[in-house]
């Protein structure tokens, strides 16, 4: 798969006086999971809908799988919208077959793919049942099958895990990771930062329709080094609170979470305490995406 599967070039979209997306640019590298992150209402779904050409951007350009018009590449994309549903009166197999054929699959391909995916999703016994007879969790798995049945090169999942129980969540997560390992690109939109942290290779943080930060997870984390340390100590620790380079101390189980004053070097802190107490463990705490986000946009992102 040559080239970037998705290039977003300063797209904007307003609804009346509300600016949903404002001059957003991003580039999706191939073969990775790309997280669209941000609180509810940040503009994630609007951006995705513009990628899918369900709504037109007011300005800016998009290239999907190297094409400026999505029409020619729709069959190579799998899209699971946030607002999702299926034809309730159709049978499970027929629904998948219909969506697969809309994505350009022929009958032979469908006959091969449908049983395989039903089995993988533990829905083999339900193939001839009507969709409305399935439980919510099953319907969501069915929805996922319908999204990936055409073996898309680019998979766009808008809040794919909402409402799933932990078992099914793991099942789907592993499949998504597997698809990534096959070289497919995945756009994964969520407002759950912790979820994104566990699965994404790249992230794009959006707030109020604007990019806050983007890059690989490591890059982003490295850029926003935390000044928090986790230490496990033996001995009298009260003095730490009084050190000039320490901003605050929080007790966490047997460990202490130490926040350093701005600009302070953790190395320095270690040197200071190593003579006075016994250090059992010392860890520079990696910043969570949530922390980075809060740091970048302030408290408004707290949910």
């Amino acid at each position, binding site marked *: 798969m040559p080239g970037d599967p998705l290039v977003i070039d300063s797209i904007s979209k307003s609804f009346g006086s509300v600016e949903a997306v404002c001059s957003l640019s991003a580039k999706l590298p191939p073969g990775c999971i790309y997280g669209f992150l941000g609180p509810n209402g940040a503009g994630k779904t609007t951006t995705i*809908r513009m990628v*899918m*050409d*369900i*709504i*037109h951007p007011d300005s800016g350009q998009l290239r999907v799988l190297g094409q400026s018009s999505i*029409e020619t590449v*729709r*069959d190579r*994309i*799998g*899209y*699971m*919208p946030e*607002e*999702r*549903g*299926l*034809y*309730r*009166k*159709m049978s499970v197999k027929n629904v998948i077959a*219909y*969506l697969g*054929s*809309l*994505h350009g699959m022929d009958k032979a391909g469908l006959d091969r793919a449908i049983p395989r995916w039903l089995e993988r999703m533990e829905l083999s016994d339900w193939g001839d049942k009507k969709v409305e007879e399935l439980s919510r969790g099953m319907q969501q798995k069915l*929805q996922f099958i*319908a*999204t990936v049945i055409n073996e898309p090169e680019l998979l*766009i999942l808008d809040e794919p895990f909402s409402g799933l129980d932990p078992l099914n969540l793991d099942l789907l997560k592993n499949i998504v990771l597997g698809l990534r390992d096959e070289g497919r690109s995945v756009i994964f939109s969520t407002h759950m930062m912790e979820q994104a942290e566990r699965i994404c290779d790249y992230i794009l943080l959006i707030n109020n329709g604007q990019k806050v930060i983007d890059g690989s997870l490591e890059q982003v984390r490295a850029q926003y080094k935390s000044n928090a340390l986790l230490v496990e100590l033996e001995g009298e620790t009260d003095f730490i609170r009084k050190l000039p380079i320490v901003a605050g101390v929080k007790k966490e189980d047997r460990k202490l979470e130490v926040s350093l004053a701005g600009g302070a070097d953790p190395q320095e802190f270690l040197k200071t305490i190593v003579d006075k107490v016994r250090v059992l463990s010392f860890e520079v705490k990696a910043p969570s995406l949530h922390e980075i986000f809060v740091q970048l946009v302030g408290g408004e992102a707290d949910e």
Partner: protein
Amino acid sequence: MNKILKVARREFFETIKTKAFIIGILLAPVIMGIAFLFIRFQEKTLTGPRPAKKLALLNLSEEVSAELDSAFAQHNQSNPQRQIVLKKYSEENLPGADARVQELKEAVREGEFDAFLFLGKGVLDSVGRGQFYTKKAADITFFPSVRYLVNDAVFKTRFRQRDISPELIAELRRGVPMDEVDLSGKVEKKRNKVAMMFVPLAFMFLMFFGIFAVSQVLLMSVIEEKTSRVIEVILSAVSPFQLMAGKILGIYAVGLCLISLYGTVVYATISYYGAGDVVSAGMIVYFIIYYLLGFLLISSMLAAIGSACNDIKESQTLMQPVMLLLMIPLFAWFIIVQRPEGTLATVLSFIPPMTPLVMILRLAAHPDLPLFQIIASILLLAASVPAVIWAAAKIFRTGILMYGKPPSLRELIRWVRYN
């Protein structure tokens, strides 16, 4: 194009599997049966028996009395289904008669008689006048037949006074037997006039049903896809326009099936009444053209309305203007059939949503409509179809992703202009 056909195919097969559709099919013979009975009923009221009419008579011209009696007796004898029961009152002179007139008028008012006929003195010399009092002026045949009988009695009395035998006069006045032959169809023939009136109506109902009732299936299908949230999933594979076009096409196929079924039943019914030859090949071609264009016009409007609404109830409000337009031909059918080349019929033919209904009504009533009118109406309709589809597609695109409060008509127009 391929995707449009795929959407259409699913729409078609899923629709004909629904209960509503199967009921609709079963309903076809029932509706036709009702139409059949309706025509029978209309025929009966025009030619069938009616209750006898009670007529009070106060006749001051004694000289015509005998012929009057025989005229009414003869009428009753030759019209067993239109009996007139005569009750005679007599009063010699006017002051007394005046009171009697008042009394009998009152009796008519109270419903004792259907009518009261007063004949003044000297009707034979055209000095006296007659007065016919009735409450049932809407009965347009009663007064003329009474007037005819009175005049007949007066003529016969005059003949007798001049020693001319009324039988001789009748003999001399014998008419020429004549048939009315209709040339509008291919086959020259005498027609059942009542059925002839209802053939255009049957055509229009078929068109109305095929366009409006079937389009409502599309409206419901759009609303269902929207409320079940399946619509955006489908939009991952097809564009909003492809989706709309496919749905319209699928439902159109459903409509064609129903129209053929109902049309066959209608044809059987009117053939039974000897009017089957109105259904010429040309008529069928016109029907197909008007049906296609009319369906595209109305169904794309309803698809747009459906996309903007979350349930059937909300859609009713937005549908009202369309409904009202389509109702006009339904109310005006009688005038249009009576005067297919009249101003009303011509003007209504050129208001696109009404065109298919009005034109099929006019063509069935009067197959020799000016060709330029037919062509002009088709061209106007054909030109308005892409414009409406274009606007509908814009509303559809915006509407299908909107949940919550349904938009007003003004907002819909804004969506068209805005996007």
